[in-house]
């Protein structure tokens, strides 16, 4: 009962926050499932994409994100589920009748056609006359800034140029949706960042809804108005990049989108506590204890001198630095937390005052901490240094 209530109120807030209701959505995917032989690669996946927005399907390889894209494009057929494009049922249509533009991972530019012929292909097969075709191709070439390359062949272009041609080729026949299949993974990291920015600006200008596929969480954050995280064929969470990062609903989302510390924790007398071993089931208060997981980001930790308390809402007690690495703008540390000796006596996260100064013994709980350059300069820490560990915010997962 309680769970249901929570679920409904959550959905209501989502509807309120996000105006993309199904009637206004450009793309609606409902209950999509797909098997390859006896293996289920997609399990009841549903999401929608608003007009002019971009959605990123993020997940590791084998999560079903590419399959989802291929189902929407019409290159695979689903076992069950529905796909609507601007209110039109499309899951039974062949790919050529869906009016969807796909930018493939290798761009799949036709090797025997010039850049201009590639871009004009969609119009040519639709029987559009030479003159009109020429106009459209010239306009698109100007848009992607490759006017000088119109008569070159794909093999003569750089990866970034090929990607732009692939986008122009898809835009030429004015598709209702653009699908990008890991379109940045083949590019040089520096070009990748520049192109992402360009494509985002272009999509906002053209107001074409776009679906991206990636395993790169940084890319997902940058490109997506919404990010959907897939794992093992299931949709784990969908939301804005901010929501997904700050409010992960599952451990997978927490660790896949950005770095996260996930530690075992349990509730005790209204406080949450972390431990290295197991929650003492035999304790008198066992019934009131509920096992849970505590998630916090490396940047949520503040380190201080072991003699003082750090000015943060919560405390994790004391620890010892076991590793320091310099990343430029930030510094990453690994800190081993120290635990009080008595079994069952847990280091409280809430409230701070329970973090006593008793004799500590090391435990094998090591957390990851990221500090800004300035914090690192203010309190330089070397391997072996004792610290007190403060926590600014955390989330619990059931």
């Amino acid at each position: 009962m309680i769970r249901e209530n929570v679920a409904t109120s959550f959905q209501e807030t989502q509807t309120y926050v996000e105006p993309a209701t199904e009637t206004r959505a450009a793309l609606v995917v409902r209950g999509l499932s797909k098997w390859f032989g006896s293996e289920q690669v997609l399990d009841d996946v549903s999401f929608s994409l608003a007009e002019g927005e971009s959605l990123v399907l993020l997940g590791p390889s084998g999560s079903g994100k590419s399959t989802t894209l291929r189902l929407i494009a019409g290159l695979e057929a689903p076992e069950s589920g529905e796909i609507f494009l601007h209110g039109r049922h499309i899951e039974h249509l062949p790919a050529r009748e869906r009016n969807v533009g796909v930018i493939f991972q290798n761009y799949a530019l036709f090797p025997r056609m010039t850049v201009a012929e590639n871009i004009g292909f969609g119009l040519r097969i639709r029987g559009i006359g030479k003159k009109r075709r020429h106009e459209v191709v010239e306009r698109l070439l100007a848009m992607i800034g490759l006017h000088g390359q119109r008569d070159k062949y794909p093999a003569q272009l750089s990866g970034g140029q090929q990607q732009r041609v692939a986008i122009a080729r898809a835009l030429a026949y004015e598709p209702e949706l653009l699908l990008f299949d890991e379109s940045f993974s083949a590019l040089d990291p520096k070009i990748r960042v520049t192109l992402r920015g360009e494509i985002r600006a272009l999509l906002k200008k053209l107001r074409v809804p776009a679906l991206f596929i990636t395993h790169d969480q940084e890319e997902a954050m940058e490109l997506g108005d919404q990010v959907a995280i897939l794992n093992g064929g299931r949709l784990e969470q969908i939301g804005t990049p901010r929501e997904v990062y700050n409010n992960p609903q599952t451990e997978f989302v927490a660790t896949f989108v950005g770095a996260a510390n996930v530690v075992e924790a349990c509730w005790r007398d209204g406080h949450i506590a972390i431990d290295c071993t197991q929650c003492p089931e035999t304790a008198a208060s066992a019934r009131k204890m509920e096992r849970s997981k505590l998630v916090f980001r490396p940047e949520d930790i503040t380190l201080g001198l072991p003699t003082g308390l750090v000015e943060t809402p919560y405390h994790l007690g004391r620890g010892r630095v076991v590793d320091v690495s310099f990343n430029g703008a930030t510094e990453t540390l690994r800190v081993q937390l120290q635990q009080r000796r008595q079994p069952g006596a847990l280091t409280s996260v809430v409230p701070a005052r329970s973090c006593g100064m008793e004799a500590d013994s090391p435990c094998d709980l090591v957390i990851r901490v990221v500090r800004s350059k300035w914090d690192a300069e203010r309190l330089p820490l070397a391997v072996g240094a004792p610290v007190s560990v403060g926590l600014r915010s955390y989330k619990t997962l059931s």
Partner: protein
Amino acid sequence: MAHNRSNLRHGVDVARPLGIGFILAAMLPLVILPLASIFIFGFSKGPVHFWDALMTPAALFSLRLSLMTSSVATICNVIFGLIAAWVMSKYAFKGSSALMIIISLPTAIPTAVAGFALLLVWGRNGLLGQFLEHTDYQIMFTTAAIILANIFVTFPLAFGVIKPALDNLDTSYEEAAETIGATRWQTFRYVVLPSLRGALVTGALLTFARSIGEFGSTIMVSGNLALKTQTAPLYIFTKFNEGDVEGANAIAAVLAILSFAVFSLILFTRQKLEK
């Protein structure tokens, strides 16, 4: 790129001159001398003599017939090879590997056996030939028989080149064409076919090269009638048997040159078109 390993070592690498020397020594009596002798003997009595031997009606006819029958067989086998490669590459079906073997079989069969087999089918009392017996149409001992024999012995050559090219063609090109809105035919016509250009040309040249020199099956099915069903290789054989070495030599030289030309073209297309 192509660093010669022996350059990196100190001193003289003996294996290199010895190895090259061995290859040349082995090839001299086996390949190089026989080829060279065609030209040495062909022109030994002067180019005028060579020209006269070549310009006899029977010699010219045999060359024309060889070119014609080989071209027809080439066209047939390239078309067949393209369709067969498409089917075998795109569709998985029961017995497809057995079909693969049957398609590839004809080159493994001795050409005389192939010719004999054709006789058994199209001959007067053959499986299919018996139905032609009382009509005006005859297959055996005509140009059609030569073409049939050529098709048979070169059957899998074009297929063998086109099939791997089609297998290696990234399916994303076809998928891209499909999402752009192309029909299957348009995808084939504008995307697949241009990508197979090199394989088609190479396959055609291989078939032609093999076909133009065909002897064993042709002599079985053609009847070797001068000015009727005598191809260039049969002409060489016949003239030599009759003791006309010059006549045989002239056509042999022309065939050899033709083969060099086709072979160079194959190397050229491999380099230029298949990429």
